């Protein structure tokens, strides 16, 4: 039997292939972030629960705060200074979850609220602290080196050498003035789609399929999200010399993490199967719009949060047809 705690544990377990790929291709940064954000999230959760006079261990053991921490750790730039991650994780729990009443009562995806908050507040740190693929470095920084970087104890010069922008970012900004072939000559694109990123996305895809198989999530949100994103790219960005091509949209950014782990957060997602299809499609469309015509190279957080806004509306208009009824009810009760 599934319990809520077990569901959270399975979701965390299903992120492990992705975390492994991130660590293999980009170094220790994400692993440290995952541990750090989880500690911060759980600590914040415990503190607020105590202040709210709720049973701390009972609620902490449901694993939801830990999951928020893990997702943030996976999503944030690997070499982000520790205090920015702390702000992200603490505000995710405090602002987006506990202030709304705790687990199950939040309107917005907590991890994405934390992410969006630091993305708006510290735009430079959030775009430049992405780790370069280890394969491109002369010497891969070890665990302690990485810790020092994150703890802001390392020399700025060493940091500059191993950080940079993401392939999505680079492609988006270079393609305006150059051809696709010259842009992708940059070694961060590797031989395939985007060095390392393709494996990370495949690993998240595998973890996500595992969750579908366990019936912890359904296929509706990932399918409609990926479908809408693909469709948007084929409609508006079919020319790789003009804009980011479809394989990079799918496999170069946080797309698969979003599809199976972020957008599928049940608390803040739409309810019915039909609603989930609209919700996922909405995220896909918004993600493309922001990536292609907005100023951010990746936009999972904004796309998800915007669709979180729309959830009550979607829920009222996508109710299933109940047994014995001729058609489904729509809208608010009259």
């Amino acid at each position, binding site marked *: *039997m*599934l*319990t*809520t*705690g*077990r*569901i959270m544990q399975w979701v965390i377990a299903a992120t492990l292939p992705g975390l492994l790929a991130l660590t293999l291709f980009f170094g220790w940064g994400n692993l440290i972030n995952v541990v750090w954000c989880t500690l911060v999230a759980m600590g914040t959760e415990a503190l607020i629960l105590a202040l709210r006079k709720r049973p701390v261990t*009972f609620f902490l053991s*449901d694993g*939801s705060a830990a999951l928020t921490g893990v997702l943030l750790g996976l999503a944030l730039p690997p070499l982000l200074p520790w205090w920015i991650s702390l702000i992200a994780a603490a505000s995710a729990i405090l602002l987006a979850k506990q202030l709304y009443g*705790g*687990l*199950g*009562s939040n309107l917005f995806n907590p991890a994405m609220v934390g992410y969006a908050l630091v993305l708006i507040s510290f735009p430079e740190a959030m775009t430049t602290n992405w780790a370069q693929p280890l394969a491109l470095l002369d010497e891969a920084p070890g665990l302690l080196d990485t810790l020092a970087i994150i703890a802001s104890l390392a020399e700025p010069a060493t940091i500059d050498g191993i950080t940079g922008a993401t392939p999505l970012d680079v492609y988006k900004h270079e393609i305006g003035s150059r051809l696709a072939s010259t842009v992708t000559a940059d070694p961060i694109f590797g031989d395939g789609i985007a060095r390392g990123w393709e494996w990370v996305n495949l690993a998240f895809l595998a973890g996500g399929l595992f969750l579908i198989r366990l*019936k*912890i999530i*359904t296929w509706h949100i990932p399918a409609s999200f990926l479908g809408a994103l693909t469709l948007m790219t084929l409609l508006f960005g079919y020319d790789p010399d003009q804009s980011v091509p479809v394989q990079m949209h799918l496999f170069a950014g946080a797309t698969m993490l979003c599809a199976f782990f972020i957008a599928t957060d*049940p*608390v803040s*997602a739409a*309810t*019915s*199967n039909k609603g989930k299809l609209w919700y996922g499609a909405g995220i896909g469309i918004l993600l493309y719009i922001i990536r292609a015509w907005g100023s951010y190279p990746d936009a999972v957080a904004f796309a998800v949060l915007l669709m979180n806004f729309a959830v009550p509306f979607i*829920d009222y208009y996508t*109710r*299933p*047809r*109940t*047994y*014995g*009824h001729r058609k489904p*009810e729509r809208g*608010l*009760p*009259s």
Partner: protein
Amino acid sequence: MGRPFDFPGGIELPDNKTQSLQSPIRQPSLPDHFAVPLLQHIGEHARACVQPGDTVLKGQRLADSDRGAGVPVHAPTSGTVTAIEARQVPHPSGLEDWCVRIEPDGRDQWTELADCPDYAELPVEEQLSRIHAAGIAGLGGAGFPTDAKLVAGDGARIRTLILNGAECEPYITADQSLMRERPEAIIAGARIISSLLGAEECLIGIEDNKPEAIKALQEATNGTGIEVVVVRTRYPSGGEKQLIQLLTGQEVPHDGIPADIGVLCQNIATAESIYRALRFGEPVISRITTLTGKALERPGNVEARIGTPIIHLLNEAGLHEDNLKRLIMGGPMMGFDLPSITAPVVKGTNCLIAGTADEFPDSPIPQPCIRCGLCEQACPMELLPQQLYWFARSGEYDKAEDFNLFDCIECGACSWVCPSSIPLVQYYQHAKGAIREQRREQEEADRARLRFEQRQARLEKEKAEKEERRQARMEARKHKASGATPESAASSGPDLETLTRRRDDAREKVDEARAKLEEARETAPEAVTKLERALNKHQKRLDSAEQALANAHESSTE
């Protein structure tokens, strides 16, 4: 698409049926007393037609009931009626209700039964009345009087008769053992119902976890045209609406009954008892009851007589009372906990589960709903259980209703799958109760408002009439003063009818005033003067009314 069709949702449950299927149906011994409740079904209490001290024979009618109101109940054995009293009956609240208490004489002697080999030749009305007289109410659990259900079908409209042998709840094997051991009687009963309804087809729905019963029924139906439809074991396939959907692909309209789509469902045990009633004249004095649960040494099915104290059956099955944690009547999904082990077996007692702590551990403390949607995937009615829960919890009953709360069949699939262990069905039951209560209050308020409005209207009307009369009097006085001709008075003044009514009114007032005065002379001398004055006044009015009438008469005859 062919049979069986499918229904959405549903869950797979550990069925726990084998433990009670190890032996054939057993006959329990006679207990030292029976308590036969007068109400065992939907409807009214049966009226007792025996008295304490009467001796009764097995099968003799103990209490009677009119057709349409309920069904009679009968003596489960021969013996003496020792009391008709309120006793605990099987009810979740430990309700007490009227029961006929019988002490057996041990001879177990039948009353005279109307054996009838040619039952099929009986007229329809006679068959129905015998079904009623035998006290047959749906044995599946709900207990709707069967004769009423067959009539509600209204004969010609029923195309498909469905016999429900799905028995989808875990633990229960009462129907299964009956199908295994008495398939011929079930089929004979099915044919009776079928011909009563004039049904075109008869289907028996059964889950695929009952191979022996399926085989027995298939043999018994051979050449009868009755089709045994095997459906996948999935709870709640035996819910009436789900079974209809599985067997016909149709849905019962949400505000209707199966007859609206030409379908009627009967439990297989009901069919068997119909056959026994018509063929042998046997009333329902027993039913197959599953005794199971780990607190019993010898689980199995028994032919339990109605009115047997439950404790008697459990003891015979080897109850370890120390291990007993929960005693459930019905299945673990839709049954309820019996507050008392002394309550009697009733017609709806299909299963008694004496569960241990090991079998029924305490449910964990509910966690918050994370809207995971597992409940929605499990709901066979395609509701949104997580939304209903939210609305029920926050008391937003209008929204709950709008989300079709009342279509919930309370099967409990959602509660079963809920990872946060939320007792969802309890929330829905509570919300339904609260809404019904609100509706009742609303109706009462509406009635009160209507009463008030009608009273206001009446008062206003009286006031207007008074005003009209006053006006008329003033007119008349004015005419008199100005010396108007009788003609103009007659043409502009009130007509004869009004004047007559006024005269009558005035006379009534005079009478009233006189009566009051008389009364006051004896009881309240201080008010006499006042009342005399009032009488005088009324008398004067009467005089003038009479005068006006006379004038009018004159002018109209001129």
